[in-house]
């Protein structure tokens, strides 16, 4: 069991080392002649206009929020799913099913709410659709 985790640690460290060693070794054969023009960022061949980190749309933030909610749910439901069969075998299948249903159901209600409020709509202007719902 511990060996399995050790194996994963080795994999992660090896992956890290592989990239670093690869970059270090090829550093011997690649040129390094930086210049001001070369280090300009790419903007279709024009001079870069303004800062590169522009404002981005709020919907990415909403998607991230929804994702976190669902991902946490998945982390909780995976272990329950793994023992569901044992519950059936011991005759408590319906109980386990009801518990899963309640847990998922709460989330589904939240998702329906987000859906109704237009959080899943990609194209529309979010502020407008929220105002529409409010009025």
């Amino acid at each position, binding site marked *: 069991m511990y060996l399995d985790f050790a194996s994963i640690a080795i994999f*992660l460290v090896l992956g890290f080392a592989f*990239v670093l060693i690869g970059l270090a070794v090829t550093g011997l054969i690649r040129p390094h002649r930086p210049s001001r023009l070369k280090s300009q960022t790419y903007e279709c061949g024009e001079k870069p206009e303004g800062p590169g980190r522009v404002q981005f749309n709020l919907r990415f933030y909403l998607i991230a929020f929804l994702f976190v909610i669902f991902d946490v749910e998945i982390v909780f439901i995976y272990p329950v799913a793994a023992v569901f069969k044992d519950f059936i075998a011991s005759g408590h299948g319906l109980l386990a099913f009801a518990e899963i249903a309640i847990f998922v159901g709460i989330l589904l209600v939240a998702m329906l709410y987000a859906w109704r409020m237009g959080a899943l709509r990609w194209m529309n202007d979010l502020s407008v659709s929220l105002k529409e719902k409010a009025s």
Partner: protein
Amino acid sequence: MDILIQTIGDIINADLGSPLAAFIALLLVSLAILGFMSLTAGGLSFIERRVAGRMQSRIGPNRVGPQGILQFMADGLKCAQKEDLIPDGADRLLFKLAPVLCFIGVFGTFAVLPWGNGFFASELNVGLLYLMSVTSLVVIGMLMAGWSSNNKWSLLGGMRSAAQMVSYEIPVALSLLPVILLCGSLSFKELIGAQGAMPWDWNILNSPFTFISFFIFFLAALAEGNRTPFDIPEGESELVAGYCTEYSGLRFVFFFFAEWANLYVIGAVAAAVFLGGGHLPFGLESDIVSLLVFFAKSFFMVFIIIWLRWTLPRFRVDQMMTLCWKTLIPLSFVMLFGQAITLLIYHELTFLQSIVSLVLFAICVLVGVKFVSRVLVNIKEQKYKMMHTLTGS
């Protein structure tokens, strides 16, 4: 390669007591798998281009080595000789860290992937959960690459990729749930062990719900791996090159290295979880044979992914997000509940499962026969048409 794995596996079993020996054996295993991953990623980049050439009536790479098979090495060497540029105003630490995270995110999954039925680098009892979580590193790498480049294209591309990948991670995880309910385990070893050799004993044909789950998984995994029809992050015409616009040389290679290796990961997970692993009927099974069967199944899935890329056009970004949030996620919840209820019913009426599996298998065979006959008819018609245009009648 399998002989190498066998011997190292023997060493691990023999010398569990000595930590140093175990460490060396594990290191050798992971190095062997790293080599396999490199060859697969490079080989797939070559195969993909040749398949694309075949499907588009052109040749594809055929100059370097026999049939151009060394093309990926030439490409790698070329990229290794390119100057490593870091743009003005970039966050240098994050810029350098991003390709590493993308690479580790994919390489980490190889730790729990099964190699046939006999060998596992790590028989983790939470294998699937680990696989889902370590792939998330790729998203972080992409966000980092997009943010740190100080470039508008990169930022937008990174945001879009992250939004797409986190969204599609949910259906991937949810569509694996019916199978976990069915097998009662998260470890790949037990997931494979719970399935049988014949097609109707595979998880995919257990009930209509696992059957549909397989397709949800496949679609969502395509999107998570940034493959056509969901390759918006690389929509060249819209975003230049997305999050890796500012990357050059070897750092750029590592992003694509990870992406091609991810193709194999998708194929291997599908083969292990849904398609029966490396089982073979009639007592033909041994560790090495099961490895070959497993590879055959995984690479067949990879071939289908490549095939799809040259068949389907790209989705629009809003259509893609709608498909995920409004179709795939609700559908996979239905599959979860459906499978749970099915299991309760199967427990009462055991004979029902074999009937359902056989009926599903029959449907699959019918669809397959229909598909082949359609293809044959199409080929015949094309030949007929071509003959008439050539002779002018």
